[in-house]
């Protein structure tokens, strides 16, 4: 929804007042980030479960894909991924893309864990090393401000 109000979104932190606001509402950015990660992880897992238990041959024709979407697990996964898409769009309005990407990458780790414990996939030691690298990346981003373009946004909105 368009807004003409110059009010800052959560995560805004470019000016002095923006900085103060950021710390007041930063918790909302964090909660939304957790929500985005969980909807993505469970959406992917449901999709994977559905795809593993289907007998449809997939090619270039869109019809088998459309038919598949209405199978229960894929429908559930798709619904979660639609919620993920919309909540992530909201998050992208509140925080930088270069902030959202690494922070939400914990989802890759959770997907690996689900892959191991639900789908019985093998997790080797270098996959755990990969998990550690992603977590280190998240820690790096944790030290940065969520929204570095807020000043420009406020100026553009007048």
């Amino acid at each position, binding site marked *: 929804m368009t807004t003409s109000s110059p009010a800052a979104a959560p995560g805004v932190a470019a000016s002095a007042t923006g900085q103060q606001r950021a710390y007041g509402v930063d918790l909302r950015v964090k909660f939304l980030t957790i929500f985005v990660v969980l909807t993505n992880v469970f959406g992917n897992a449901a999709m994977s479960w559905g795809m593993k238990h289907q007998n449809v041959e997939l090619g270039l024709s869109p019809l088998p894909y459309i038919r598949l979407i209405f199978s229960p697990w894929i429908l559930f996964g798709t619904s979660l991924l639609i919620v993920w898409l919309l909540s992530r769009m909201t998050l992208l309005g509140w925080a930088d893309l270069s902030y959202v990407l690494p922070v939400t990458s914990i989802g890759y780790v959770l997907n690996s864990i689900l892959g191991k414990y639900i789908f019985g996939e093998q997790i080797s030691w270098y996959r755990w090393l990969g998990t550690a690298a992603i977590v280190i990346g998240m820690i790096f981003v944790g030290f940065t401000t969520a929204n570095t*373009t807020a000043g420009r946004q406020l100026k553009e909105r007048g």
Partner: protein
Amino acid sequence: MKWAMVAIIVGATAVGDVLQSFDMKRHAVQTEQLRPSRWMSVLSGMARRAPIVVAVFMMAISFFAFMKLLSLADLSFAVPATAASVVLETVLARIVLKESVTWQRWAAAFCVACGVALLAM
């Protein structure tokens, strides 16, 4: 075929994310708009904006390629392999969106890319 799907997913996701970020920064959803009674007006507002429409189209391409990839490979390969988009998108965030990408963010993108590569092994 597997890697062709990965390439489609990475390219479509990068373009879709940059367009979403570009548009949502200019029309950020305010906290009070998160109430269920406001959802329809928020969604109809989004549906009228060209960058969001194109972004959703790119995400749809990425989604169907991901479905195909899941039928060819394990979840623990499919999800990490598509994360190659993190580095590409960080570069685009700096160049196109003019975000202030500090050394911590470059380090994070590098760590995530390495981590994803390891997860995909």
